[in-house]
């Protein structure tokens, strides 16, 4: 199996149809396939162990992904936002690589490596030239399509491996080939080093939905491109949606009547933000997607109809589903287990386990699947009586106070109901008496007075119980998030250090 099949089928079906638009240049499926075959020839000639990309998203990401696939060499998109020493360590782990993008930075950080470096322009031009004569013969290699370094919020980044079989299984299980009409376009603004960036390329090409790339997200640029290209679909992380809405509130209101669907994921979506978006985009279908790098993207989703049903319901249990990540895909199984590995019934919190052909659960260093093929996500959550999955933070984020497990999510949910609080995080703080205790960081809403410590403690005590009452409280201007909207709890903990 080889993911290059995806591009090959689109190019076979309609070689002249436009598949990708970036910086004003329009690429047909035929032209993309030709360039990918040319890239494969260059990659094979370079005799490297990995194909690295250190660049914002552009046509080069698509050509490198499929070119590496045809050549049978793992594609490794790197996070250009990493600090020099962190990036240097990753560059060392993939040498010798065929490296596309920021040549000067690679040479500065990793001067004595055997990397073959090319700028984006050089790579694309060479791929197009070689594509005129390249055979396009597929190589299996180790069967690895992509190697993605996980963000490493707790330890050194792990090299997650996604096999051709994993990614193809995900695409074949979730996308109908050629199902998009010729006027559909997907606005893609996630960075190429994120699993969502890879999934966006594969899904859109298999659906034959034109990809419109926005290399660096900025809300006004997003609104302009969405209107100019008449985008029908878009994927955003919650922070992006919040910034788009702020720009619209500030008066930037282009014609977005073509926007049929917005999918979101990658971080916690504040309830009031999604409620606001549903009102602001009444004709748009919203989909919440939950997935991990190790699962080839989405494993559960809350679809447009479920969003509207939750929005319009008077039943608190149905309304609550606006905060869920929906039901598992038909092609995957999900279980909630306790610390001893016992499967928990509906409504009980535990660790989320997932199994399915798209689930790799494999790292360069080790395989994390159990004997029956289940992958422990390290995410905590529960499933309600109707099968809807709710996330409750990372399993590692649990606060253990005197032997009692406390999920940060339950405390944060209560704090977020306070009208003066814009954002909140609960973390473990050291406690002489309990080992760990609850610390909360709260962000006041502009124009509101922050309630005093006693009022916040009383709120938690009334709604939850005394063990959840915070021992330490800090007030911050903003909580620290990474660029994908993931809360950096390590950074929050540091605020309690002094």
């Amino acid at each position, binding site marked *: *199996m080889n993911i290059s*099949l995806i591009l*090959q*089928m689109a190019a*076979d*079906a309609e070689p002249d149809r436009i598949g990708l638009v970036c910086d004003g240049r329009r690429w047909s499926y035929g032209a993309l396939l030709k360039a990918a075959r040319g890239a494969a020839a260059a990659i094979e000639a370079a005799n490297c162990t990995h194909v690295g990309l250190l660049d914002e998203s552009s046509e080069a990401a698509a050509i490198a992904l499929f070119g590496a696939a045809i050549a049978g060499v793992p594609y490794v998109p790197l996070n250009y936002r990493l600090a020099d020493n962190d990036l240097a360590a990753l560059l060392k782990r993939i040498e010798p690589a065929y490296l596309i993008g920021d040549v000067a930075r690679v040479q500065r950080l990793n001067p004595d490596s055997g990397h073959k470096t090319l700028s984006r322009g050089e790579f694309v031009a060479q791929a197009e030239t070689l594509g005129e004569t390249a055979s396009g013969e597929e190589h299996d290699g180790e069967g690895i399509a992509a190697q993605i370094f996980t963000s490493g919020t707790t330890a050194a980044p792990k090299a997650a491996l996604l096999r051709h*079989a994993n990614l193809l299984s995900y695409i*074949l299980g*979730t*996308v*109908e*080939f*050629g*199902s998009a009409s010729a006027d559909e376009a*997907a606005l893609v603004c996630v960075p190429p080093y994120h699993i*969502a960036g890879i*999934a*966006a390329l*594969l*899904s*859109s090409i298999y*659906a034959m*939905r034109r990809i419109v790339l926005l290399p660096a997200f900025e809300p006004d640029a997003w609104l302009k491109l969405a209107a100019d290209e008449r985008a029908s*679909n878009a*994927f955003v992380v919650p922070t992006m949606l919040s910034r788009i809405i702020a720009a619209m509130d500030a008066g930037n209101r282009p014609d977005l009547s073509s926007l049929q*669907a917005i*999918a979101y*994921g990658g971080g916690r979506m504040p309830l009031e933000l999604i409620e606001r978006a549903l009102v602001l985009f009444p004709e748009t*279908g919203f*989909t919440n*997607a939950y*997935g991990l790098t190790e699962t080839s*993207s*989405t494993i559960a*989703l809350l*679809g*447009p109809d479920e969003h509207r049903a939750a929005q319009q319901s008077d039943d608190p249990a149905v309304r609550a589903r606006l905060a869920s990540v929906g039901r598992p*895909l*038909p092609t995957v199984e999900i279980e909630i287990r306790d610390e001893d590995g016992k499967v928990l019934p509906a409504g009980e919190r535990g660790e989320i386990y997932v199994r399915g052909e798209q689930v790799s659960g494999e790292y360069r260093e080790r395989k994390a699947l159990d004997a029956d093929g289940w992958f422990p996500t390290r995410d905590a959550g529960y499933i309600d009586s109707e099968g809807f999955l709710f996330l409750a933070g990372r399993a590692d984020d649990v606060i253990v106070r005197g032997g009692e497990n406390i999920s940060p999510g339950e405390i944060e949910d209560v704090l977020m109901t306070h009208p003066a609080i814009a954002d909140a995080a609960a973390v473990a703080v050291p406690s002489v008496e309990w080992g760990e205790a609850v610390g909360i960081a709260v962000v006041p809403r502009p124009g509101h007075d922050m309630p005093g410590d006693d009022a916040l403690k009383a709120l938690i005590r009334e709604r939850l119980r005394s063990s959840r009452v915070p021992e330490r409280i800090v007030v911050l201007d903003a909580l620290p998030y990474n660029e994908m909207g993931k809360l950096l709890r390590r950074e929050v903990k540091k605020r309690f250090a002094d």
Partner: protein
Amino acid sequence: MKAGSKLKSVTCDTEVMVIRASDVVVECGGAPMVDVRPDARVAINPSFAEGTKIGKRYVNADDTIELLCTKGGAGSLSIAGVALHPKDAKPLPSSD
């Protein structure tokens, strides 16, 4: 026959990739499919001439065999003379 292997029709342009397999011979247009297509075409059996469509997945009755059509053609797929049928895919909302 194993998952990932590719088969070509000797009667038409049809090509498939095996998604789920067991040890069987897949036919297209009434004739066994092959790894490497010969130069000369075999005539299509009119009983297996409904055609295949690119992107469609074809399964047998007990769902033990699944093939992805990667190139469409004039013949239709069968195993031991029993027609395979296109799999109904429930459309999912796009999540990417």
